[in-house]
């Protein structure tokens, strides 16, 4: 497959690895956060960690839209389906995220909730057209990449005058999350999370462009390299970050020039700002309430806003006590720091959201990397 396979070439990977080994300064440690779950997934799936010099540590960031969904939001979706009789449509990965009372959307479905997996937001609109006598709610999650398709269906529903369709909007914003991490005491005050630079989002950046990252690079003096999700992209980005650190630079560099421009997709941006506006505050799993970190539907489209249509009342719900997802999403801990990783919490029975999506740090490590974990205890 063109533009895919070329970026998964193992021989080239070994060359970049060799170059990296030359580039790292003896005695210096490098710690980079890959913001996106897409990078986390690539690192685990392709075994990139084994190709990096021992002095380079990758810290997983909060960039997985499924992982940052707070329990209370899933509860709302389940409530709509089970108590209000709505058809709730959602992307596949959302269905397994743990909610209150031992439920998840997929378990609610087994209890009779009419929950449907869709591949595209447009499919949810199709479900609404086919079921005019039912309320159909699209449970919309995702970062800036996934927001424009949601904006599109809201605009289309409005144009068509659909009466039974609404969106439960959980779209969140990348820059606010990065700022939040950079502002966190662990990074700023205690230095317990040393971050020497960021691998910047790939697909988010296709939409928003590379400009929004200039701010961090300047304000926090952290290098940012925007990189694609293929394994060579990741290796190259690490190499570029190491170079910046070595040279004392803190710039926004773009490894993913084949898809990302400075200004991004203007059409998509315009559509998003037509339909959505900044939300004053939004709860993220792991990060808590983060001001201006999410979107809500503009008043002009209020009748497509499930929160208003059903007068929903958001109730935050505490994560499982043992779960370290919060700390992991902030980069403070690693999956194996969690006491129940791989025992009580597995992809089969995820306790926290990081064990759900294969981009979640815990799931990625469990599924791809846990053969490295020692010691072994027979159960």
């Amino acid at each position: 497959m063109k533009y895919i396979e070329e970026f998964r070439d193992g021989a080239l990977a070994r060359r970049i690895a060799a170059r990296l080994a030359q580039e790292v300064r003896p005695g210096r440690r490098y710690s980079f956060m890959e913001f996106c779950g897409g990078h986390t997934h690539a690192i685990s799936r392709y075994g990139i960690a084994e190709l990096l010099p021992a002095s380079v540590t990758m810290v997983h960031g909060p960039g997985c839209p499924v992982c940052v969904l707070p329990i209370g939001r899933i509860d709302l979706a389940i409530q709509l389906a089970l108590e209000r009789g709505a058809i709730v449509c959602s992307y596949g990965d959302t269905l397994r995220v743990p909610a209150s009372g031992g439920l998840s959307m997929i378990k609610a479905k087994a209890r009779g909730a009419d929950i449907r997996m869709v591949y595209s937001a447009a499919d949810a609109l199709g479900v609404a057209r086919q079921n005019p006598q039912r309320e159909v709610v699209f449970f919309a999650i995702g970062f800036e990449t996934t927001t424009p398709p949601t904006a599109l269906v809201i605009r289309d529903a409005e144009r068509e005058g659909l009466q039974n369709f609404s969106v439960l909007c959980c779209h969140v914003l990348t820059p606010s999350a990065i700022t939040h991490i950079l502002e966190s005491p662990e990074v700023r005050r205690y230095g317990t999370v040393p971050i020497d630079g960021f691998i910047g989002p790939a697909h988010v950046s296709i939409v928003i462009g590379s400009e929004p990252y200039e701010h961090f690079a300047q304000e926090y003096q952290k290098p940012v390299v925007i990189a694609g999700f293929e394994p060579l992209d990741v290796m190259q980005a690490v190499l570029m970050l190491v170079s910046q650190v070595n040279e004392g630079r803190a710039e926004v560099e773009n490894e993913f020039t084949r898809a990302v421009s400075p200004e991004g997709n203007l059409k998509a941006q315009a559509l998003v700002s037509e339909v959505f506006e900044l939300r004053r505050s939004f709860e993220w799993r792991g990060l808590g309430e983060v001001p201006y970190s999410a979107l809500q539907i503009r008043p002009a489209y209020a009748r497509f806003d499930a929160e208003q249509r059903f007068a929903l009342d958001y109730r935050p719900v505490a994560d499982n006590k043992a779960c370290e997802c919060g700390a992991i999403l902030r980069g403070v801990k690693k999956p194996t720091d969690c006491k129940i990783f791989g025992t009580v919490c597995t992809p089969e029975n995820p306790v926290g959201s990081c064990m759900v999506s294969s981009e979640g740090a815990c799931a990625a490590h469990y599924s791809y990397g846990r053969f490295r974990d020692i010691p072994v205890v027979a159960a």
Partner: protein
Amino acid sequence: MCLAIPALLLELRAGDQALVDLGGIRKPISVALLPDAQVGDYVIVHVGHAIGRIDAEEAQRTLALFAEMARLEPQA
């Protein structure tokens, strides 16, 4: 995050729709978010929508950069 994949745009269709090909798989997608998409473009498909396109020259440049790396002798 945000699974997305470059696919060859084969055909533009009415209503902002298009047909793409990925390794022999053909799938209808929306190009409403990329109105200037052209047949022959490699568009980046996310949840059934083209959200961007591959700049062939830039892709070439990146690959050239890797290739350059390959020419350097690794230290054993």
